């Protein structure tokens, strides 16, 4: 397979969101009798990108009740809470999907009563850092005098005077001086409204007369 050929994930991903959740779906290409598959979307069904060989299983019940320890032949790269699919040999008695708990670099345990199996393999049920979002965000919070509004909160330095006006407006409002409060609130609104957004690039090309 050519290394520059994109095979995974496929190109049929899509997203949508509600107030506080993001949904990731894939076009469902499975064929069900009597049902159209055109433009049907379902959850991501692909295979994870972390896998490895389990060189031995051991009874971990003495440490954590009802669990089995897996020792891998190399660093597994998993974290506590990660979900994996295990396939065990020779009988497949430990086959299944599990949420694992990290022990060390090449060991983890999972909740399943120990059954003697010689070895096995595991594959993650996720793509590590496989999803990236870019979003407009709230600014960071300030909770120490040494913190800077630009470096700690992300507020453009040109808008720092607006914060001062906002504070003055609120302070005058607390004192009952509504006239001054409105004056500084007006200044604040004007600064925020007029402050230019950053441009993403050159929008027009000026061609001088030849």
């Amino acid at each position, binding site marked *: 397979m050519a290394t520059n050929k*994109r095979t*995974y994930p496929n190109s049929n991903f899509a997203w949508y969101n509600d107030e506080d959740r993001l949904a990731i779906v894939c076009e469902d290409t499975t064929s069900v009798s009597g049902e159209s598959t055109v433009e*049907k979307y379902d959850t*991501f069904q692909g295979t994870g990108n972390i896998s490895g060989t389990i060189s031995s299983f051991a009874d971990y019940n003495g440490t954590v009740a009802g669990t089995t320890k897996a020792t891998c032949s190399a660093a597994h790269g998993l974290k506590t809470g990660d979900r994996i699919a295990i396939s065990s040999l020779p009988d497949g008695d430990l086959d299944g999907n599990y949420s694992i708990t990290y022990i060390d670099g090449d060991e983890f345990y999972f909740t399943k009563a120990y059954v003697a199996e010689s070895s096995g393999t595991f594959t993650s049920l996720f*793509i590590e850092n*496989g999803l*990236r979002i870019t979003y407009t965000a709230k600014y960071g*919070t300030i909770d120490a005098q040494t913190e800077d509004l630009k470096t700690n909160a992300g507020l453009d*330095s040109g808008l720092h005077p607006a914060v001062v006006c906002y504070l003055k407006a609120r302070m005058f409002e607390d004192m009952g001086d509504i006239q001054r409060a409105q004056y500084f609130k007006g200044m604040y609104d004007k600064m*925020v409204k007029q402050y230019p957004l950053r441009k993403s690039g050159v929008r027009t090309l000026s061609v001088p007369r030849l």
Partner: protein
Amino acid sequence: MTAKNIIEQIEKLFGRQSEQYMFQLMNDALDDIASHKRNFTSSKKTNLKKHQRWYQLDDDVVDIKRVEVLDTNDRYVLVPKLADSHKILRADTDSNSATWSSATGSDDSLT
């Protein structure tokens, strides 16, 4: 400008003030500016999980601009937004846990 600079300006006019109250007012101002300007963008990454549809968003997310998934070449590929989701989706799933980590911005993107 640091928080201390701002507090000094306020205290010059109003006298000694509670530090926590000043922080609260500054954070109120930051939230108010964010709701009006929407020019502070950020990126985060999380695991793409098999059989999981919903990913809980952190509280700092105001508006999602773009969503990308990692391909086999370790490049992030832009995915489209589903315009009419209710008519073409299969049954929902219940899990929605997600742990987001900050993106460094060094990753390559395809748009």
